[in-house]
């Protein structure tokens, strides 16, 4: 094996990193894809990232935060599973409408092949009726016209490539790797094993196909899948129906329905159904800056991100996902109540101590590659307000008994009463100096706003008075200390001089009118200082010094602000449409976007970005309806 660096075809925007030589006869190029070249498949338990080149480069089983089996996303030696024609002149891909079933079409000189990738999904009651693998990815390639030479390379590298994959060929029972359970690769073709890498070349004529099933079983004997065309077609159909039935529940019929549905589907992939929570993103250490060290593990439940996601799902009437999250929040995090952690694992536990994987070179040499997340120990005051804001949406005091929930809300309120004046790490999780962040203060103000609005039955007069008094104090502090008349703008921190996009929440959260003089002045300052491309915003002025990318969530907050009255409906629509241009070809968003290189940055796909898209679309819809009402 030797390594070289050359540029891949420009239209694919990929970089060839390695050539694997077999018996000096043939080679398979391993292309390191860019973040926006990936699409994602999953089953609300785990996900896999698949590049445009048909390479499955990221998979952690059985849970989001389990060690990886494939991690070529972070290092070429991390393992991958590629199924693609030897040479393609054109590659296009799409999801089957309203599903997470991915179809990649390869056009070659001699024919056209379509690769279908998915994780089978069935309704829970039907799933229980049959013997099915615990975890499964199915890949199916069929030649639609002409003939195509297809290459398959299966190079698993368990435990973030720390463990050697001992591939065993069990004949008709497939290839096996034992690692805290059993990974089994079944296929309709015969693999050649060499140095713990399985490869195979196929010459497929029109209507011929090859099918593959990768499964993982940890707590019982493996369950195999049938790989004949009829069985595969049945599984695709069942999965298609499941996703489409789920997407049909989305209550939004506005002009942006396709992108809203795609975002909801992406959020559903980040949902861990057995516990009800959401991970911020299914990847780790995709850099916020190429070559930089802002590489974090997002495979955990951030309360802030989850709260935004719950609001988005609630707005779409997807209560089957939103309610279980509230239950997770109340019961799984009970051990740490009323002091909340910033993030939890999917079962509501401490996520573990942050570690650096020194043996991985990182995405485009962006080191370190981290697993776990040290932000879990931070103090971030804003999460209390965000959680209460999300939870308050689900409360109907007349209809249901919420005694336990009310007790917990009062506890949260009392905690914030004791701590609202403390400096914190803030929404952007700065690891160094704690400061009094305006956004955190605003969310504390919002917490009391919501609690007092709910009119909790168990809230006695004394506590109510305390909450009202603290709320007034916070308002006073924001209005006096977080407003800087010298720069004629609200500032990111108390007594500060810099602005940040999170200040738009002063209007989104109802603290200020979007059209107030102060908000307009603040918005102008944000535009002037932080807008780095059309509808692309840096999070704050520190990001200018650090040469960071633009956060998608900031772009959507901008749309929300404009839609709420900070601008005209046309301006808001324009900003939204412009932001959508930055999504990749299958409508997925990462955390950030580099306006210079025009590449996605950060973990992918990101829940906060997609919830921002939905919340912005809903704000636009409300504004449009309001306008229609006024006109009518």
């Amino acid at each position, binding site marked *: 094996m030797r390594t070289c660096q050359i540029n891949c075809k420009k239209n694919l925007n990929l970089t060839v990193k390695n050539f694997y030589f077999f018996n000096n006869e043939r080679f398979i190029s391993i292309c390191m894809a860019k973040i926006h070249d990936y699409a994602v498949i999953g089953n609300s338990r785990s996900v896999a990232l698949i590049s445009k080149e048909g390479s499955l480069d990221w998979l952690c089983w059985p849970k989001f935060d389990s060690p990886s089996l494939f991690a070529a996303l972070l290092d070429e030696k991390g393992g991958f599973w590629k199924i693609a024609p030897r040479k393609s002149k054109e590659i296009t891909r799409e999801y089957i409408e309203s599903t997470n079933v991915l179809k990649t079409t390869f056009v070659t000189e001699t024919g056209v092949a379509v690769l279908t990738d998915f994780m089978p999904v069935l309704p829970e009651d039907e799933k*229980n009726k049959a013997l099915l693998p615990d975890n499964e990815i199915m890949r199916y390639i069929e030649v639609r016209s002409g003939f195509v030479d297809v290459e398959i390379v299966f190079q698993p590298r368990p435990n973030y490539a720390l463990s050697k994959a001992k591939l065993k060929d069990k004949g008709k*029972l497939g290839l096996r790797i034992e690692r805290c359970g059993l990974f*089994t690769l079944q296929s309709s073709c015969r693999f050649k094993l060499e140095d713990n890498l399985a490869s195979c070349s196929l010459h497929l004529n029109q209507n011929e196909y090859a099918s593959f099933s990768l499964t993982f079983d940890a707590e019982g004997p493996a369950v195999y899948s*049938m790989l004949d065309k009829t069985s595969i077609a049945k599984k695709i159909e069942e999965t298609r129906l499941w996703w489409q039935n789920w997407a049909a529940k989305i209550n939004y019929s506005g002009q942006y329905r396709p992108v809203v549905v795609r975002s909801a589907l992406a959020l559903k992939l980040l949902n861990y159904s057995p516990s009800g929570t959401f991970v911020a993103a299914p990847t780790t250490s995709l850099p916020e800056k190429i070559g930089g060290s802002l590489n974090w593990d997002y495979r955990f439940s951030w309360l802030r991100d989850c709260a935004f996601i719950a609001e988005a799902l609630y707005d779409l009437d997807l209560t089957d996902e939103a309610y279980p999250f509230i239950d997770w929040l109340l019961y799984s995090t009970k051990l740490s109540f009323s002091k909340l952690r910033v993030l939890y694992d999917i079962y509501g536990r401490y996520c573990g101590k942050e570690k650096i994987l020194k043996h991985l070179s990182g995405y485009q040499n962006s080191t370190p590659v981290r697993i776990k997340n040290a932000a879990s120990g931070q103090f971030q005051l804003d999460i209390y307000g965000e959680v209460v804001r999300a939870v308050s949406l689900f409360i109907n005091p007349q209809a249901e008994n919420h005694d336990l929930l009310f007790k917990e809300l009062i506890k949260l309120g009392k905690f914030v009463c004791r701590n609202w004046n403390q400096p914190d790490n803030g929404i952007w999780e700065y690891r160094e100096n704690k400061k009094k962040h305006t956004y955190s203060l605003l969310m504390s103000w919002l917490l009391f706003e919501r609690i007092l609005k709910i009119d909790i039955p168990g809230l006695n007069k004394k506590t109510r008075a305390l909450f009202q008094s603290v709320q007034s104090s916070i308002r006073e502090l924001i209005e006096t200390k977080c407003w800087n008349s010298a720069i004629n703008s609200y500032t990111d921190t108390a007594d500060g001089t810099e602005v940040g996009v999170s200040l738009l929440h002063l209007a989104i959260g109802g603290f200020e009118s979007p059209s107030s003089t102060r908000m307009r002045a603040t918005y102008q300052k944000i535009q002037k200082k932080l807008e780095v491309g059309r509808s692309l915003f840096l999070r704050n002025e520190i990001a200018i010094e650090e040469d960071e990318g633009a956060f998608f969530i900031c772009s959507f907050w901008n749309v929300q602000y404009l839609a709420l009255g900070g601008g005209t409906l046309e301006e808001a629509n324009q900003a939204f449409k412009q932001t959508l241009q930055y999504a990749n070809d299958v409508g997925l968003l990462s955390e950030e976007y580099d306006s210079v290189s025009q590449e996605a940055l950060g973990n992918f796909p990101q829940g906060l970005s997609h919830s921002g898209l939905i919340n912005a679309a809903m704000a636009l819809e409300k504004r449009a309806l309001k306008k229609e009402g006024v006109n009518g």
Partner: protein
Amino acid sequence: MVNILILSLLATVAFSIIMYGAIGIHLTRLNIPFLLGTFLTANRSKALIIGFFLHFLLGFVFTFVYLLIMVSMNWLSIWFGLFLGLFQALFVLTVFYAILPKFHPRMASENWGPQEAKLLEPPGFLGMNYGYITPIVILIAHAVFGLIVGMIAFV
């Protein structure tokens, strides 16, 4: 009689603890209740419940068989119980697992691979398809089962 039933229950519970403990720490994937249950149903949840019932029933049956052998040979001791347990384990590992795919209605065969309705992984030689440590776990579990049944000598 009550003593025998209690011993039988204790022995089967100990056997289950060892087996599930081994599954929990990834030493084996041999899930006996699941394998027993899938004889009768393809429904995962039901298979586990039925399998547990059958597992305990078999525990009683084997206790009686062990006792019958002990009494007929006039040798009631924990050491003979241990011997019987190990003997049974060896039989299960070498003979029973080899022929299991032939009569389990949902188990695939190593020769033919998965077939419609026969999708369950076979145990393979000494049950090692379910993990290389499986034979040791089986030996220990049966040994403990036999020891507990052999405690009848003290009752």
